[in-house]
């Protein structure tokens, strides 16, 4: 079956979002402030710790945090809640009346909406990282970080839909979504590199999909030219898509039996 709607969905949403200057300005301002504050804190800590922490210099930590924050800020912070509410209220049933995958259309549209935010945050992040942390640690790492950012957003979106799918069975699944966001912040290594987590937590986090959502692009941008991180993200993307498809298929079947 043709999937011609996929690029159209991404492009339409991206085009529209790029015209929403007010929303973009708020997102960019929020990103610049938060990423600058956190990266400054870590740079100060590294300087106070003999110039590096967990193998990252102050400059590397700066690049790391601008990229980990960009990967997460690119998404609508209320996305998981909005998707979950649509499912819980039964509004998602209307989507079943189109000859296309409900999950596919939703993820493609959200990916489109995220891309202008991601592009803007990345550009601002690179400028601020150069300004506050110094030149890019490794140009090859930066080049690899760009596709990695897109993969990070895609993994996060698909995972959010899989988690939000809990609303097919549980009326109020908000606590699950709250937990999900915290897991991305901590185990996704958005606030601090994976290497700074305690040993057991580091090991655990390394085996979880959250690393694909913030850690991977940030690690690459911080001068670690580890192309295998892209492969890891690709792997988790496929796993998460499989999980989300399974959740939505089961959820849609349930919706067709018990109603919305």
């Amino acid at each position, binding site marked *: 079956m043709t999937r011609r709607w996929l690029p159209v*969905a991404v492009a339409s*949403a991206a085009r*529209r979002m790029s015209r929403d200057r007010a929303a973009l300005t708020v997102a960019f301002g929020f990103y610049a402030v938060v990423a600058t504050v956190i990266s400054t804190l870590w740079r100060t800590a590294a300087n106070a710790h003999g110039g590096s922490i967990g193998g990252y210099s102050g400059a590397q930590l700066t690049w790391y945090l601008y990229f980990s924050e960009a990967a997460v800020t690119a998404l609508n912070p209320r996305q998981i809640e909005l998707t979950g509410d649509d499912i819980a209220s039964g509004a998602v049933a*209307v989507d079943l*009346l*189109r*000859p296309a995958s409900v999950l596919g*259309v939703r993820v493609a549209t959200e990916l489109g*909406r995220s891309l202008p935010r991601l592009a803007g945050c990345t550009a601002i992040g690179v400028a601020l990282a150069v300004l506050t942390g110094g030149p890019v640690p490794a140009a090859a790492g930066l080049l690899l970080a760009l596709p990695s950012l897109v993969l990070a957003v895609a993994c996060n979106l698909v995972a959010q839909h899989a988690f939000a799918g809990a609303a097919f069975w549980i009326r109020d699944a908000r606590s699950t979504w709250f937990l999900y966001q915290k897991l991305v912040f901590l185990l996704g290594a958005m606030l601090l590199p994976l290497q700074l987590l305690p040993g057991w937590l580091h090991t655990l986090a390394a085996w979880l999909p959250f690393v694909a959502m913030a850690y991977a692009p940030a690690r690459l941008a911080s001068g670690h030219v580890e192309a295998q991180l892209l492969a890891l993200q690709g792997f988790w993307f496929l796993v998460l898509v499989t999980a989300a498809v399974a959740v939505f298929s089961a959820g849609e079947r349930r919706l067709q*039996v018990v109603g919305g």
Partner: protein
Amino acid sequence: MSALSGSDGRPIIAARQLTKSFETGRRGRRQLVEAVRQISFEVSPAERIAYIGPNGAGKSTSIKMLTGILHPSAGAATVMGMVPWRQRRELTRRIGTLFGQRSQLWFELTPRETFRMLGAIYGLERSDLRSRVGQLGDLLEAEDLFDQPVRSLSLGQRMRCELAACLLHQPAVMFLDEPTIGLDLLAKQRFRELLVRLNQEQGTTIFLTSHDVADIEHVAQRAIVINHGVVIYDDDVSAMRRSLLATKLVELTLAGPTDFAGMAGVAVAEHTATTLRLVVDTAVRPVREVLDALLLDLDVTDVTVTDPPLEEVIAEIYARPRT
């Protein structure tokens, strides 16, 4: 162009003993509630059907089963020869659906951008899509709305764009669930006229649910009334008009206290110093004739004429002797 299907005389929609039950309550205290009970009817191609009933009667549940987004507990149904809940994807390419309370448009996009996306979903060629959007803009008099963000449109304008969105792929059957809900009088009237025009010009079958009696009179050729999940009336609107919709409610605001002597076919429901509410039996005396007489005799500052509420029509159906 005709959107007809089933021109071989077969019904375009058929429901036989269609039933849907839902479980409610907590575990251990589960109760089975029958939202729709053994409903049966057939719809011919290009018919305009009003499927009406009060809130909670089972209208939306029926429409969800007929569009395939809900499985029935028992019974059978076909739409254009397809079993909706088994062939949902295939069916969605040939039917249009409009839910008055749930938008199918993307709020951040303009209607034209939404159409582009829907065109891709329905596999329309770019040139076909362009000409179709142009046709729909003319038909719905909505061309100037297509480039405004959906969120900036009024409800009436949005409903015209919603209608365009579900007509994009030239469906043979349109299912509309409470499409006039929330619209003001003028917007409602315009929307009803559009549906009739669509049916007459393109042969699209209209299956409309509503709890507004005026929707029946102005859109439908045939009315199916459902209450507590059961079909209680199924007849032509002309017959219904004679037997059940013969009364009109007339409310007059008076300039001051006045006497009303009464007239044949008119019953007084309320009479105060400033208000006179009448129930007019149009089978005895046309409402226009009553208004002419009242405006001549009384000092009237305002007049409203309304249909009886659906609950009264349903009470009338139950009160009639069974045949």
